[in-house]
């Protein structure tokens, strides 16, 4: 009996999307423009649904690399004026400008984007670390100033995100004109919320950025835990707790990256029992101390930081993650094909095990 393709695969009825992630780093510090990452995330367009996309980029502001680069999003010009009063009273701004954008037919009603390259006057810092100072200001703006959100606040890095297909967002922000050594991208939309410009991935805090495929079902516990350390969640979706969690563990509590991974995707108790006595002790302590930052539910993260990124999937590997490398370039993605689009001849490609972190460091930043 003759049959057609549509008989078997009814297109237009099934939503086959599921977040798409891709990130890569040139460990030798070689820089490239955003064309490749845009191409790769576009290649996984079936994974996105046009309601969110974003990029975290490291090493793109070399001439202002000691300044905190505040990427701001404003709903309207009034919000900008209000916020600028606050920013100018908190920082010494060496450059402020509109983030250059390119009109894109498919990007509708974008808010205003500005960036400020700031330093902190020393007199403001008598009893505080500069990073803590910035963190406080970022959380203040997100929580208390209407219509203003901080997209990113790190040094020599920036986040670009919004509502639309990820590659259109990349085109809108003219990412093809930037050069950087680390590019991380995400498509689809914030979990459990309507897509809105601040809610797209990546979520950032200082130099840390997180893109996430999945859903954090322990959000309530994580959020309450982080609130006790002064992190107020205001993005209306789950992934921001990861960014704050990294900031807490890594910057404030100075945990090594492997320990951070062991907290986020901590081993099951039955697996901890199988370890050697020293390791058992370590993992028991980590789980007991930081139980509030154990992330439950399906996830695949790429966590970017100054000098590299960490990729990790949840303990049941409920979300896909593929890693490959070619020479000094390391690639992480949801689908192998997206990696092979950028780099067809990989030295090695493999699927990391559940809860097993994969690190890629710039040379000189190894841990």
């Amino acid at each position: 009996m003759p049959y057609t393709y549509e008989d078997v695969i009814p297109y237009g009825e099934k939503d086959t999307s599921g977040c798409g992630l891709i990130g890569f780093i040139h460990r030798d510090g070689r820089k490239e423009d955003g064309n490749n990452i845009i191409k790769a995330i576009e290649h996984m367009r079936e994974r996105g649904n046009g309601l969110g996309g974003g990029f975290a980029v490291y090493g793109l502001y070399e001439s202002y690399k000691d300044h905190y680069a505040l990427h701001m999003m404003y709903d309207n010009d009034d919000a900008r004026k209000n916020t600028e009063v606050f920013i100018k009273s908190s920082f010494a701004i060496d450059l402020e400008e509109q983030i250059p954008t390119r009109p894109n037919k498919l990007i509708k009603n974008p808010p205003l984007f500005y960036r400020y390259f700031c330093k902190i006057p020393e007199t403001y810092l008598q009893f505080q670390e500069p990073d803590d100072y910035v963190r406080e200001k970022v959380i203040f703006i997100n929580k208390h100033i209407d219509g203003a959100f901080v997209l990113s606040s790190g040094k020599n890095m920036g986040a670009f995100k919004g509502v639309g297909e990820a590659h259109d967002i990349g085109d809108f922000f003219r990412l093809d004109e930037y050069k950087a050594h680390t590019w991380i991208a995400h498509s689809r939309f914030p979990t459990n919320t309507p897509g809105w410009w601040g809610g797209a991935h990546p979520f950032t805090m200082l130099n840390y950025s997180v893109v996430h495929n999945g859903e954090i079902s322990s959000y309530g516990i994580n959020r309450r835990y982080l609130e006790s350390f002064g992190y107020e969640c205001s993005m209306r979706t789950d992934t921001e707790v990861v960014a704050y969690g990294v900031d807490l563990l890594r910057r404030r509590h100075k945990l090594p990256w492997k320990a951070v991974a062991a907290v986020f995707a901590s081993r099951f108790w039955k697996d901890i029992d199988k370890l050697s006595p020293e390791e058992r002790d370590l993992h028991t302590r980590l789980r007991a101390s930081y139980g509030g930052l154990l992330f439950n539910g399906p996830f695949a993260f790429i966590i970017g930081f100054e000098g590299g990124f960490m990729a990790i999937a949840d303990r049941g590997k409920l979300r896909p993650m593929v890693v490959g490398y070619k020479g000094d370039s390391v690639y992480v993605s949801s689908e192998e094909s997206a990696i092979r689009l950028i780099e067809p001849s990989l030295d090695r490609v493999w699927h990391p095990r559940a809860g097993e972190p994969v690190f890629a460091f710039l040379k000189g930043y190894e841990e």
Partner: protein
Amino acid sequence: MKVIDATNLHYKQMNVMVYEAIQAGEKHIQLKNVLGQRFIGDGLRGEDVLIEIFGTPGNDLAAFMNGPQIKVYGNAQDGVGNTMNAGKIFIHGDAGDVLFYGMRGGEVYIKGDVGYRVGIHMKEYMDFIPKAVIGGCAGDFFGEYMAGGILILLGLTAEKGQPLAGDYLSTGMHGGRIYIRGKIDPSTLGKEAKPFELDEEDIKLIKPLLENFCKEFQYDIHDIMKAPFTKLIPVSKRPYGKHYVPGWHTLTNRKQLVPSSYEDNGYPTIRSVRDR
């Protein structure tokens, strides 16, 4: 033979080309430069059709496939052979997660490693027995809730001392058989299946499959048969049958509510609960 260059083709365009070629009577199709195109071979019929794929096919390769033979020269992604009915797949490389989900028939041969949740809920009915041979190692949940079919794991890529399969191996298994070339750490094994040694019947069952595997991927069957295999088969029927009936555990005289012919299977009906 028809050659389709898949460079920059969307999966829908490419798959329609494949379908139209098969409708036109083409028996041998080569797909070149495949890069992440999804749904290749989905729902295809025709036992004498051969599709050769060069590159990296996308997710859900050969889902619901009903007859053709697919050869992949490269790695495959997630969801290969999802609910497949009949046909053969050879993958000259690794494959991702959730392979052969609910597979109902046909054969799959994979040279390299596979990811997590491989062979979940494979099933069989009379002559329809799905079979899969994996040359490398597998992740967690291998053969979880398996209800039928044959899974063979060879672990040829394993380093010494490395376990061939991950945790929760065969959890909830209630049908079919898993053959693993090596020993199993009992702590990774689910409660519902137990390891056994192979008998004559088993050898008769797996030998033709291993021969196919060796022929395609250039291995020596004697080398592969030399190492001892372990067989996993379920030791209970319907282990979760009673979990899905509301109020079942609170009933006092369960036996009376179950028709005697159903007793062994543990099939209480909703009606009998209401009657109480």
